[in-house]
């Protein structure tokens, strides 16, 4: 009976449990035996339910354990209740080592954990929160944390899912890659910038080279034109010598004939006398031209001595005055040079005679001629002579300038380019041979000096001659 009662008690208890678990059974009438059978079947049912639950449980467990992300379940206070295998593996702790410990020891600092925990308990959820966890080995690994809160047995359980690093790492890798690419890009930009700068400076250098080339070409052209001049000269020289002989003998015959006629005839009519005089004059003129030609082509050697430019200018002026009258021309002398110049005096005199003759002839009726001399350095007159002056002068070299300036008709720009060419003349009508300035140019060049002409039509012309100065001991 005891057994029965005991059993009944147990069955009753069982019944209560069953009724509690399976309320739909309550209304059914059951006999004890039925009850026992039923109970047995219930137990079997329960067993199978339990097995099912266990299966689901282990299935869930397996899923959880197979996660590559860290899953930690903690209580409301943050004490660890369980950790999955991935968690153990990544963090380096066994579950039993950390069970019931506060999660905070995994955080970088206590304060960071507290801050986060406040947030979790308040919001009861969290997603993709960036945090760092410390491993057992002391490494710090970045995670993306998602949190959810569930109630179990009236207690809150906190489920923390730390997203596996692979994605983040690969992202970081990508970022690093991008950073590399950016850096490479920056380097490339830097290289490009440098290349650009180099190109710019190369361009500048190129420009300089081009300028230099242009200058050289100009110099070359000048040299060429001078060579052509020189060739012309040598041709002129040869012709001149030949012509001199062939022409001077007939001229001699004419002069001697004129002399003979004048002297042999006791009475020459006035008209005939005039004719003879004209013949004599024109023989002289022809002879002068031949003389000029010969001078032009034969000037090769100089007899250079230190001399006074002022007296040379004075003498040239006197010579010109003998040939041309210039009552209406005011001569203004500004002779300030103190240096002795290195010159072949008769030849330089010839140069200034030529220049002064041109000046006088350039003044149609009334005007002024300035004759100047002054001492300077090559550097200071660089702008007057330009490129050319480097050819014959050192920058610091002392030089003397002699200038003749007139207020005459001037020379056109086009003609100015040709004034030093042999046989260039605008005075054909008045018997100019076009050799005066050509000879002067040649003589000045032989002196290693420079001659430059500046002119404005209607205002006048300035001829500037630069000459080398004798050293102090030569003076």
């Amino acid at each position, binding site marked *: 009976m005891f057994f029965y009662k005991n059993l009944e008690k147990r069955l009753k208890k069982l019944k209560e449990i069953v009724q509690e678990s399976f309320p739909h059974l309550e209304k059914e009438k059951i006999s004890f035996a039925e009850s026992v059978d039923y109970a047995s079947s219930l137990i079997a049912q329960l067993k199978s339910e339990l097995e099912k639950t266990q299966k689901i449980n282990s299935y869930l467990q397996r899923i959880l354990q197979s996660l590559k992300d860290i899953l930690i379940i903690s209580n409301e206070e943050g004490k660890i209740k369980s950790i999955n295998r991935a968690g153990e593996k990544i963090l380096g702790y066994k579950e039993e080592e950390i069970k019931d410990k506060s999660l905070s020891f995994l955080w970088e600092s206590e304060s960071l954990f507290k801050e986060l925990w406040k947030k979790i308990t308040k919001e009861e959820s969290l997603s993709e929160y960036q945090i760092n966890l410390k491993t057992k080995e002391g490494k710090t690994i970045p995670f993306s944390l998602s949190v959810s809160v569930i109630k179990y047995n009236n207690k809150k359980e906190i489920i923390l899912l730390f997203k596996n690093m692979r994605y983040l790492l690969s992202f970081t890798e990508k970022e690093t890659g991008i950073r590399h690419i950016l850096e490479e890009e920056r380097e490339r930009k830097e290289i490009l910038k440098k290349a650009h700068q180099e190109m710019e400076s190369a361009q500048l250098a190129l420009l300089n080279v081009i300028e230099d080339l242009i200058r050289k070409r100009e110099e070359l052209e000048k040299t060429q034109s001078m060579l052509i001049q020189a060739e012309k000269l040598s041709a002129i020289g040869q012709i001149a*010598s030949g012509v*001199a*002989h062939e022409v*001077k*003998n007939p*001229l*001699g*015959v*004419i*002069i*001697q*004939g*004129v*002399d*003979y006629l004048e*002297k*042999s005839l006791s009475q020459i009519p006035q008209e005939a006398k005039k004719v003879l005089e004209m013949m*004599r004059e024109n*023989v002289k003129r022809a*002879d002068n031209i*031949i*003389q000029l030609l*010969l001078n032009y082509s*034969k000037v*090769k*050697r100089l007899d250079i001595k230190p001399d006074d430019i002022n007296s040379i200018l004075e003498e040239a002026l006197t010579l010109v005055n003998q040939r041309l009258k210039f009552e209406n021309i005011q001569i203004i002398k500004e002779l300030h040079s103190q240096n002795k110049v290195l010159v072949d005096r008769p030849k330089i005199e010839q140069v200034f005679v030529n220049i002064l003759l041109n000046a006088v002839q350039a003044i149609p009726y009334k005007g002024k001629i300035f004759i100047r001399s002054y001492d300077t350095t090559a550097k200071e007159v660089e702008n007057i002579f330009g490129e050319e002056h480097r050819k014959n002068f050192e920058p610091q070299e002392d030089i003397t300038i002699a200038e003749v300036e007139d207020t005459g008709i001037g020379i056109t720009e086009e003609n100015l380019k040709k004034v030093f060419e042999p046989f260039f003349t605008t005075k054909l009508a008045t018997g100019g041979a076009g050799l005066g300035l050509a000879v002067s140019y040649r003589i000045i060049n032989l002196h290693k000096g420079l001659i430059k002409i500046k002119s404005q039509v209607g205002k006048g012309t300035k001829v500037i001659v630069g000459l080398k100065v004798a050293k102090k001991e030569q003076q």
Partner: protein
Amino acid sequence: MKKKILIVDDEKDFAQLVKMNLELTGKYEVKIENKGANALNAAKEYKPDLILLDIVMPDVPGGKIAQNLKENPLTRDIPIVFLTALVTKDEVPQEKIIAGHPFVSKPVNIDELIKVIEENIKKEST
């Protein structure tokens, strides 16, 4: 007594007119030699008081003639005046020969020429 002048020049017209002009003065007797090669013999024969000598001649150049004249004892004392179409000393090929001898450039008028002749002619023969 008239001074004797020998003109050595291949330019016949010129030589002839100079002769006419010199003789017109009444002071000179003039002989012309147109060939350079004959100049020395002509000088030996004629014994002039002065020789007017052209430089550029087709056969023998004046410089060479001057040299021959100076080397020959019979002619070495005869003064020479070069008379030439050459203008400057640079042009004269035998500068040494011309050095020391006066130099008259064509075309020369007779008064200038006589002036030079008178300056150089042998004085002792007067």
